[in-house]
């Protein structure tokens, strides 16, 4: 029978547990390091604190535009010119939600003098790609990236009042928990097999994320997914959302651009290029032209090669971000180097 | 019926039905030792004991009294049954 505890023993026990937790986190960070990524809330914070000229709204690829924004500021000699608002997992309906519920209140906020607090805003760039125009078809409420990445506390409370705590709004607290412990690899890796897989690779002496066979299999799966994309692109609710985003942007007097984000070249087969990529180009450019907004397709037209993309085949790595930023400002996005003429 | 008679009756019943001569050893010196917690009797056994006491001691046990507070040890049983018998006489 264990002895009754004292406050001293409880404190020592807790200290021991905490010590081991911290030690494990530090050690595991060497094996399975995490890198805090720029999220939508970081973008909202930057926008709230600043007065940028350009807002970039889009999926996680918006992180690449954060680097572009830094290059732009360097070239124009003005800090904080561009704020990117990256929404992980993307999709056009959630972009519209973000614009309406998180950005518009900040864009239209006025000071005590009645003037807009963020009066420098002139441009909106919407980054998208074919995947954004496909709707989820599974059960449950879609767009779980909204509670996880985009909601403020009030949105969470209102949703719980409406529906009770459920697997959808749970994502809000899940991500809050992860944000509170951003540097902890244990917290960031919960629910994934990242740590276990990294340890296995370390033991096996495997330097890369995947073995050559796994790499080939992964690439094949990607190619198949992109080729099959033409069956789902252009879902009506997504296109309606796209139109509404552009309408709102234009109604605010913003110079508006739709940019199709680069894809890893190896993932685009000839079939995919002629199918999904080509069809989405026509779809998006059609809407942009109809609404009189600038359209730039960077899907395959940049100098980014396979080595500029991360292991996930989707996002651009640090080297690629710098390459893209320099190239884009010298080429298709060079118009950003000049202050816009329009006035809201 | 004296308390010692009631005590003997319960021990004999426990021996006859559950412990075959070992009931007193199991209870030991502490006659307030819990029957339930010490494996002397279980829930089924309680019911049978109550029915037996009603028949053997000619006493009516009120439903509100059927609880561990009155039956979960030898001492409690003897105390309760004695009190009921005294109440019946007066």
């Amino acid at each position: 029978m264990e002895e009754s505890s004292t406050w001293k023993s409880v404190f020592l026990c807790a200290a021991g547990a905490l010590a081991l937790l911290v030690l494990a986190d530090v050690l595991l960070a060497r094996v399975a390091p995490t890198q805090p990524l720029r999220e939508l809330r970081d973008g909202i914070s930057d926008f709230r604190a600043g007065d940028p000229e350009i807002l970039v709204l889009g999926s996680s690829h918006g992180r690449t535009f954060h680097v572009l924004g830094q290059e732009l500021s360097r070239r124009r000699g003005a800090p904080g010119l561009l704020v990117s608002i990256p929404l992980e997992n993307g999709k056009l309906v959630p972009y519209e939600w973000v614009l309406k519920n998180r950005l518009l209140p900040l864009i239209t906020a006025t000071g005590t003098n009645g003037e807009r607090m963020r009066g420098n805003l002139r441009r909106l760039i919407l980054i998208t790609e074919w995947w954004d125009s496909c709707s989820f078809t599974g059960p449950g409420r879609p767009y779980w990236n909204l509670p996880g990445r985009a909601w403020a506390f009030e949105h969470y409370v209102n949703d719980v009042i409406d529906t009770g705590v459920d697997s959808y709004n749970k994502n809000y607290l899940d991500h809050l928990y992860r944000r509170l412990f951003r540097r902890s690899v244990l917290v960031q890796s919960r629910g994934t097999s990242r740590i276990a897989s990294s340890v296995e690779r370390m033991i096996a002496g495997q330097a890369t994320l995947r073995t050559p066979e796994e790499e080939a299999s992964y690439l094949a799966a990607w190619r198949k997914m992109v080729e099959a994309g033409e069956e789902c692109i252009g879902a009506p609710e997504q296109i309606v959302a796209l139109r509404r985003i552009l309408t709102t942007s234009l109604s605010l007097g913003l110079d508006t651009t739709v940019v199709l984000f680069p894809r890893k070249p190896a993932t685009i087969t000839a079939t995919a290029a002629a199918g999904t990529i080509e069809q989405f180009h026509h779809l998006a450019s059609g809407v942009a032209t109809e609404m009189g907004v600038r359209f730039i397709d960077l899907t395959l037209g940049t100098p980014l090669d396979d080595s500029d993309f991360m292991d996930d085949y989707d996002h651009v790595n640090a080297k690629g971000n710098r390459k893209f930023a320099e190239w884009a400002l010298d080429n298709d996005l060079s118009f950003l180097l000049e202050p816009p003429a329009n006035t809201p | 019926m004296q308390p010692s008679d009631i005590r003997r009756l319960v021990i004999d019943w426990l021996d006859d039905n559950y412990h075959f001569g070992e009931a007193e050893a199991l209870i030991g010196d502490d006659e307030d030792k819990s029957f339930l917690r010490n494996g002397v009797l279980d829930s089924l056994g309680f019911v049978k004991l109550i029915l037996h006491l009603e028949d053997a001691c000619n006493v009516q046990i009120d439903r509100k009294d059927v609880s561990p507070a009155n039956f979960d040890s030898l001492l409690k049983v003897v105390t309760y049954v004695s009190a009921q018998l005294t109440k019946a006489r007066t």
Partner: protein
Amino acid sequence: MSFIEVEFLFFLPIVWMVHWLLPRRIGAQNAALLASSYLFFAAWHWKVLGLVIAGTIVDYLVGSYLGRTTGSKESATSRRIALATSLLFGLGALAFFKYEGFFASSINALLMSLGFSSSLPVLKLALPLGISFYTLQRVGYVLDVYWGRHPPARTFLDFAVFTSFFPQVTAGPISRASELLSQLQRPRHLTADLLARGAAAFLMGYVLKGWAGDSIGNDLVNPVFDRSTEFGVLAHWAGVGGYALQVFGDFAGYSLMAIGVGRLFGIELPVNFNFPFLSRSLPEFWRRWHITLNRWLFDYIFTPLTTSRGWFRGRIDTALLVTFLASGLWHGANWTFVLWGALHGLGMIVHRNWDEIYRGWCRRNRAWVQRRKSWWYAAFAWLVTIGFFVLTLVPFRSSNIGAATDFAARMFSSPGDALPPIGINVMLAVLVMIGYHLLETKHFAWCRERYFALPPFVRGLTYGAVIVFLMIKTPVASGTFIYQQF
């Protein structure tokens, strides 16, 4: 909101701090607990609060009246009416939400099979959180007050906390008034011992529920039950054995967490599982598994029936069957649960009669007493007891009687031949559950003694290691408790 989900990670520290920052007075502490508990309910859905509050008001008023009129012969009729009102409200709500669909669809099916048309509405109602548990707790309270076993609650606040105390509201333990209400009617203090034992119980519960039970369920049980035709005979046996461990991990784990959380608020909730897989008889099993439910069933159904002056007096076997049919029905609105209950009722009857026969042998020859204490008798009894429990889980786990019979048949002959999907995770989980039980036996008491003799900091390192393991192996939001659906 369940204990292993992310909401609780935020909820518990906040309500705990608020509770202990308030003055150490009953009113303040109970007000904090009530607010926390109603928030807990509201997180499931705020509309369920109406039902909870209404039932609390009814039972508080009934309990107060019964308490005032205890022993009064003039009020006997009105006391019975008050009792009936409470039972009708509480059990009526439970019957409506839980059983309307079951009874309506069963009656429809029966009448149609007899050639009549029947279209009783089959409502698909969401079961309000905890209704199966708090209803029994409130019924027990009202009956205890009616029988004069316990005085009524002193204040509405105390009673409201008693009926809604959030650590136990989802899936028990079902507390008696003498256990929980009495604690709520005194100020509580947080001692180092309560904090330590609370945290330890919570962590152990998390291991059992958040990892062990869920691992066995996800990796072994679900695949075998969901794709039964693909698996061979051995896999079916492994699947149902795994399910026994899954339910144990899920429910015993949850109960431990509930007890742990209760201790963090200075409240000692009753033990609900006492190492049931050590049982060597069915009655012993039911004294170790879901202790508070079976205690309730025996206190409020079995004992009153068998000690009454009516037809049931002394009819122990019949009362056992009735009690376990009630248990089966309580577990769910499905004939599979009724079958499960009936099997256990019959099992208890068989055991009781075997026990009578064996005791007859013992009376004639004391050698049979010693034989019962032998290791081989114990081993055989254990095998039969646990084997019986595991096999009765086939209907318990199945969605309907047909699926249950199909599964049972495949335990002897299956079209599939896949082996049971038992990976390292499942093996480790099974070992942990076995170890958990073995450590309770006297043969391994030395392990526990040695461990608790270690310096606290060293023990803390082991707890930290367990937490690291859980963080690696379990997601923040795991599946729900199996028993939450009851």
